[in-house]
């Protein structure tokens, strides 16, 4: 199976603080991978490096064999953990922006999902509720036919019904030949859809395994193993 992501000995320092410390990991094509770790473990830093928003202090990151750059940006569909859409735009304008810049964007699919939520095309993004803004962001990201979906904390801070909606949207819309990297610390909600997991603690990869191996080897669910590994 080919690798879509390879990180080798990646270190990221902010001053004298290590956000990532000699972290190495791989993500295979066609897999849904959970990037799991407690708050401050370095998940978001890792994801930002994958997307070229941060540069590593040391080490190398390769996306389909290429360093983060213009080509990898057209391959990755990224959902950050912040409200990142241009708030002054209307729904129609932001959809047209995605259509203009991403060749793999499926406009009809995006509108179909937006219509189902009752989000109007002429509505300004800043007038949408927090929940609808998050759904809107997810819809735009999942409407791309990308090689790699990178979703940073997609289910954090939302109610259980929205959580189900988000997970359903991810599963129903991603290209099965693509990979999905989901960062979260809410494992029980997402465990059933994961193929592989990567545990991160204090900027280091402490475990990379398939979900089946964890169940077979440890006789535990991923959630239980997580609680054990990251127990205080």
């Amino acid at each position, binding site marked *: 199976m080919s690798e879509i992501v390879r990180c080798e000995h990646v270190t990221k320092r*902010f*001053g004298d603080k290590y956000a990532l410390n000699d972290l190495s990991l791989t993500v295979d094509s066609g897999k849904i991978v959970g990037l799991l770790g407690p708050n401050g473990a370095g998940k978001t830093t890792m994801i*930002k490096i994958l*997307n*070229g*928003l*941060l*540069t590593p202090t040391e080490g190398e990151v390769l996306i389909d064999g290429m360093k983060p750059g*213009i*080509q990898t*940006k*057209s391959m*990755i569909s*990224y959902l*950050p953990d*912040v*409200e*990142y*859409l*241009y708030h*002054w*735009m209307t729904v129609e*304008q932001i959809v047209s*922006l995605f259509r*203009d*810049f*991403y060749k793999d964007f499926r406009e009809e699919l995006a509108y179909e999902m937006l219509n189902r939520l009752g989000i109007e095309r002429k509505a300004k993004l800043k007038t949408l509720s927090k929940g609808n803004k998050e759904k809107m962001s997810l819809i735009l990201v999942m409407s791309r036919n990308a090689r790699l979906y990178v979703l940073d904390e997609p289910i954090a801070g939302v109610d259980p019904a929205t959580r189900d909606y988000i997970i359903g949207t991810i599963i129903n819309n991603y290209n099965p030949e693509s990979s999905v990297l989901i960062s979260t610390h809410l494992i029980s909600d997402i465990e059933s859809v994961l193929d592989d997991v990567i545990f991160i603690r204090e900027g280091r990869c402490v475990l990379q395994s398939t979900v089946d191996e964890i169940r077979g080897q440890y006789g535990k669910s991923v959630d239980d193993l997580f609680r054990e590994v990251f127990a205080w």
Partner: protein
Amino acid sequence: MVRKLIKYDFVSFLRLLLPVQLIVIGIAGVNRIVQIFEKGGGPAYSIVFVSSIVLLSVACVVALVMCFVIGIVRFYQGLYSKEGYLSHTLPVTAAQHLWSKLIVTMIFEIGTVFTIFLAVNVATIGEVGAELYKALGYLLGQAFSYLHGHLILFIVEGVVMLLVATASSFLRIYFCISIGQLVNRKKILLAFGIYFGIYMLGQIFATILIILGMVLANNEPWMHLAESIGNWVVAHPVASLHTGLISGTLITAVFGLVYFLVSRAIMTRRLNLS
């Protein structure tokens, strides 16, 4: 891709600046209407007229300042705030982002100047406007009879210099903001620090250059060179002015290029989006 970026950057500027520019034209219209009541208006007319002139002047200054500020704010917000998460994950290069921001800023700078020109025309429609254009025509005619074709060249060189200087000053601000984001905290403070640092360095460098020039001009062998340059300027004032304008434009363009290249390098290799 630059065209697509420009399309969205243009909209982001337009929604903020169009109302301001419409207000400037509106105030100019009010000023012109006030002038209708000039005959037999008395002191009340004078107060209203002067007030509307002051208001128009303030509106013009506000329009220029807002255009300048929005040029900076849109660069910072679009590339180094949360919006940067989207901007920097679009499949476009850092150079394309810089070009788009610069081109749109320049379009609106020119647009604001045009708006002010239009406002002056609206406020002076009629006899005053005709007198103004007559005076301007006379001045240009006098200048043309003395300078001939050089007048057109001076106008072109002056406009190009103004455009290059404006672009370069925005690129300097982009450069400072880009340097500022290299640190993890107090990014804007560092950007201000870098900006004033560059300004101070420029002043110090210029002062040293002037002192050095004065010292050298009074000592052999530079004394003869300075003298022959001085003689050439006196003998060929038109050519020396052309040389000054063109060389000034080129030097400003070189500085702008350096600011552009460093900003591009930071955005490509040292992005630090927090």
